[in-house]
């Protein structure tokens, strides 16, 4: 048989399905895994940044008092641009970020967070945590430059191709859907599981790949977008229509100073009342941006990006001239924009709907199982034909182990490293915030090496490793913070309790899988010995 089978439509689609699948397996699993965790990135943030944990009812801060305290904390360096996010249930603090006019402590930006009732400001987070490491990992792999975006874009296109070719390759897909034969041969039950997770999650995989591509259309479709953007010069209607022909980014500084003593809250109230009237229900702003802070041309932008009870994102945005209070720009969704906002909102999953969030989480985990079983089936069917010796099988094996269990171990190590830093256990000379990602990548790399050296037993070893790091993370959280599991459940601090419980459940599943794999390996060894003694009877 050649590398390319005799073709009719179905066989060529089967060929496309297996090769478009096996080549980016590593990336598929990484994206599914990190994307799934990103659904709870803010909860992971709370766990990894204990200073930002808060269980009480949400506090409405006085925006202008907080900004004044934040500005005063910058040692006389004035703000250039200011970005504010009010507290939400998942991020229970007022968040402030500013670009500075000159460098302060070697940085030209500053963070501030006001948690709970106290007026004390927390500084820059000491960990990248969920939203700074795990979330960006799933769309750019932390590769410097733009290459990561393009790589993940190619993976998303491959996912679209796989979603369709998969349906064609497994022609009895709906019969297969109701078939699961865990007791049958491993290769058969692997395929059953692949089909099951494939069919259940099909709309999820397709929509998330498509919406992911769409979110980064600026990269993946930059060619057409830039080309057509050129029309804007000739057209009275710009890509984003702008009042006065100036976006806040384009409006230059006046150069003359202006006292920033008017309350920002007034602009927010104006925008909210306009929107509430427009939509007939109460609407809250979730982003406030001030450009050219302290300049005569200061612009206040009030946005609503993530409505809490809707999947579709909002494009509501009002820009005000700070000096006069005049509305410079009032933008809301258009038909194509709404289609885009729905797809993007589904992918960003910032809505306040826990059942839907868990459903997407299940979809993400199903994607992990789909990828892993696909790779396993590919290997098993080739091993069955040609044995497990050839280099390409061994290579795919090591890649599969490292990319499936390896990345889970590495994620556990990432959590453990975070808590060990709290105990002062990290090398001097490396900032704690850099040490966590370093530990992640070291652990991930080691998992590939381990898989290459250990062969089949690597699956079992790494399952036990997952169980250990998962349990260790929970214990370390108990030791290093006042919020242990019993306390967090009791006080209703569900972000922390949920994280600890997920770690424990994950550790238990991994331990169970490890034990199963070990007993299977023993059984296989016994079978082999038996065959051996039958073939060579005692003299």
């Amino acid at each position: 048989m050649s590398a390319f089978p005799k073709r009719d439509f179905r066989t060529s689609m089967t060929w496309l399905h297996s090769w478009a699948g096996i080549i980016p397996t590593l990336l598929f699993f990484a994206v599914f895994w990190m994307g799934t965790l990103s659904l709870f990135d803010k909860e992971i943030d709370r766990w990894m940044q204990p200073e930002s944990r808060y269980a009480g009812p949400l506090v409405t801060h006085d925006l202008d008092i907080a900004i004044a305290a934040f500005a005063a904390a910058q040692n006389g360096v004035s703000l250039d641009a200011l970005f504010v996010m009010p507290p939400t249930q998942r991020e229970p603090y007022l968040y402030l970020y500013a670009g500075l006019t000159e460098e302060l402590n070697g940085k030209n930006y500053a963070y501030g967070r006001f948690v709970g009732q106290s007026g004390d400001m927390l500084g820059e987070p000491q960990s990248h945590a969920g939203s700074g490491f795990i979330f960006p990992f799933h769309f750019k792999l932390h590769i410097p430059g733009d290459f990561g975006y393009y790589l993940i874009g190619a993976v998303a296109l491959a996912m679209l191709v796989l979603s369709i070719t998969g349906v064609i390759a497994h022609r009895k897909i709906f019969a297969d859907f109701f078939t699961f034969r865990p007791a049958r041969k491993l290769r058969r039950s692997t395929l059953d599981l692949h089909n099951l997770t494939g069919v259940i999650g099909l709309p999820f995989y397709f929509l998330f790949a498509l919406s992911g591509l769409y979110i980064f259309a600026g990269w993946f479709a930059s060619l057409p977008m830039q080309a057509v953007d050129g029309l804007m010069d000739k057209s009275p209607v710009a890509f984003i229509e702008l009042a006065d022909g100036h976006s806040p980014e384009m409006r230059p500084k006046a150069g003359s100073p202006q006292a920033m003593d008017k309350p920002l809250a007034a602009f927010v109230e104006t925008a909210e009342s306009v929107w509430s009237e427009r939509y007939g229900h109460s609407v809250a702003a979730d982003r406030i941006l001030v450009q050219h802070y302290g300049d005569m041309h200061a612009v206040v932008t009030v946005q609503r990006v993530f409505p809490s009870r809707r999947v579709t994102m909002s494009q509501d945005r009002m820009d005000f001239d700070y000096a006069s209070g005049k509305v410079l720009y009032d933008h809301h969704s258009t038909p194509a924009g709404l289609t885009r906002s729905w797809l993007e909102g589904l992918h960003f999953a910032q809505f306040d709907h826990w059942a839907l969030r868990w459903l997407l989480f299940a979809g993400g985990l199903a994607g992990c199982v789909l990828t892993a079983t696909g790779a396993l089936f590919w290997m098993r069917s080739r091993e069955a034909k040609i044995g497990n010796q050839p280099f390409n099988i061994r290579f795919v094996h090591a890649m599969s182990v490292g990319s499936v269990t390896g990345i889970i171990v590495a994620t556990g190590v990432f959590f453990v490293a975070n808590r060990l830093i709290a105990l002062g256990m990290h090398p001097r000379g490396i900032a704690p915030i850099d040490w966590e990602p370093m530990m992640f990548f070291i652990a991930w790399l080691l998992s590939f090496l381990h898989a290459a050296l250990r062969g089949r037993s690597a699956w079992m070893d790494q399952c036990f490793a997952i169980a250990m790091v998962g349990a260790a993370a929970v214990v370390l959280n108990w030791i290093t913070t006042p919020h242990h599991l019993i306390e967090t459940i009791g006080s209703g601090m569900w972000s922390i309790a949920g994280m600890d419980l997920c770690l424990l459940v994950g550790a238990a599943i991994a331990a169970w899988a490890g034990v199963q794999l070990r007993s299977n390996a023993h059984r296989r060894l016994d079978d082999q010995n038996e065959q051996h003694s039958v073939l060579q009877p005692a003299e």
Partner: protein
Amino acid sequence: MSMGTREHTSDNVRSRMVFYAVESVRIVTVIAGAYFIVAGLDIIFATILHTSGVELSEAVTWSVLLGFLLYVGIVMWAFAAPKRHRSATVIFGLACLLCCAAVILTPETVA
């Protein structure tokens, strides 16, 4: 693949190398060519929509959204087509043609 069971005569190895080289070029042509076909069509479609009165941001949004789906269709067609080399050639030709057409439509920015 049945590489392991084949006899490794030097002729066999050489013909296999040629086979893989040709196939790689073909696969890359399909993957990259399909991108440029879609890019060209996106530009043309957005321009047509826009000149017929649709807002520019809307026109680009629709064409890019449909473009991703079209890409998948083109790749599947290319691998399903009975004559592989011909489908790759068609894709290469179409990509050149459509990108040229797009350049003519939007001369200021692309050129």
